């Protein structure tokens, strides 16, 4: 059972390493990531590394593999402490995840560890269903969520498709100098 009481139950992972986060215009951030075997020990280690890096990065709620320089379709997420969250599924990593459905687009402002100088206004779905695999077991999970977790999932999946938020800002007056570093 991969989801218990609304939380994704993660398989045991090895100890994670904190990795440096790459920033635009690095090529790896503009290149679509490739599907990988979720049971591959290297993928399991990457899952642990993403979580370790995310935990020590202030304000970071998610991290895509290509943000640490790895072109694999893997990301980590944990929005449970964020005030804009409603539904949350705890701290987790998904492999080969894709959006199944999305609706109710809303505009909001986003920043990104890989785009340290700017923030931007984007429209994203506030209801979303994402299907992916857990690292280690390869068990399939369907994450149905809303609000901030939905936005964060789309942000990470965009990274894995080779996009950053600058590719999706709503207009010329939707890019801002980043004033605070979370």
């Amino acid at each position, binding site marked *: 059972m991969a989801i218990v009481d609304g939380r994704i139950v993660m398989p045991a992972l090895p100890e994670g390493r904190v990795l440096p986060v790459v*920033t*635009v*215009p690095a090529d790896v951030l*503009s290149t679509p990531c490739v599907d990988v075997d979720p049971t591959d020990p290297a993928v399991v280690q990457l899952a642990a590394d993403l979580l370790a890096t995310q935990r020590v990065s202030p304000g970071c709620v998610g991290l895509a593999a290509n943000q640490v320089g790895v072109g694999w379709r893997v990301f980590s997420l944990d929005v449970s402490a964020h005030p804009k969250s409603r539904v949350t599924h705890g701290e987790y990593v998904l492999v080969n995840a894709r959006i199944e459905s999305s609706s109710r687009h809303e505009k909001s402002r986003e920043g990104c560890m890989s*785009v*340290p*100088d*700017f923030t931007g206004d984007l*429209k994203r779905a506030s209801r979303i269903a994402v299907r992916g695999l857990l690292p280690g077991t390869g068990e399939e999970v369907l994450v149905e969520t809303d609000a901030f977790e939905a936005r964060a999932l789309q942000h990470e999946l965009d990274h894995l498709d080779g996009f*950053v938020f*600058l*590719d*999706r*800002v*709503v*207009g*010329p*007056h*939707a*890019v801002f*100098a980043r004033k605070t570093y979370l």
Partner: protein
Amino acid sequence: MTQSLAVTVLGHDRPGIIADVTGVLAELGGNLEDSSMTLLRGHFAWTLVAEVSVEAAVVAERLAHLTAEGLVVSVLPVSGPEAPGVGGSAWLLSVHGADRPGIVSGLTGLVAAAGGNITDLTTRLGSGLYVLVAEVELPDDVDVDALSERIGVAAERLGVRATFVPADTDVL
């Protein structure tokens, strides 16, 4: 007899510049119309169009205290009717990549060559990262797929990432 004046104010930012300028216009019975203000590399930059019933020289004289503190102020009559635009459809060009000369000219040149008109533009320079976002009006007879392809080729040559998509307008 009223006339439209274009007023630009540029220079070292401080609190109160907008209040100063609009205060002068209000005292002269002017009406502030379209305006756009931002900070460019930390410098105050404001362009506005106002309808006034006095000569441009009178407005300039009343804004002279701003010039005295080091701001660059210009007050010029705006002549002729508003441009009609090229009509057609609205598009959004988003570009980001390592800073280098020629990004803006290389991409906007393609838009201009296709008969497109840029109606809104922001460029920003971060630490080595250049960002451009523009709204583009394209006449109906433009081959958008061909223009998109040319933009993609030019972006690759410039080493930047470009997306060219329909401007998202929700009319409620």
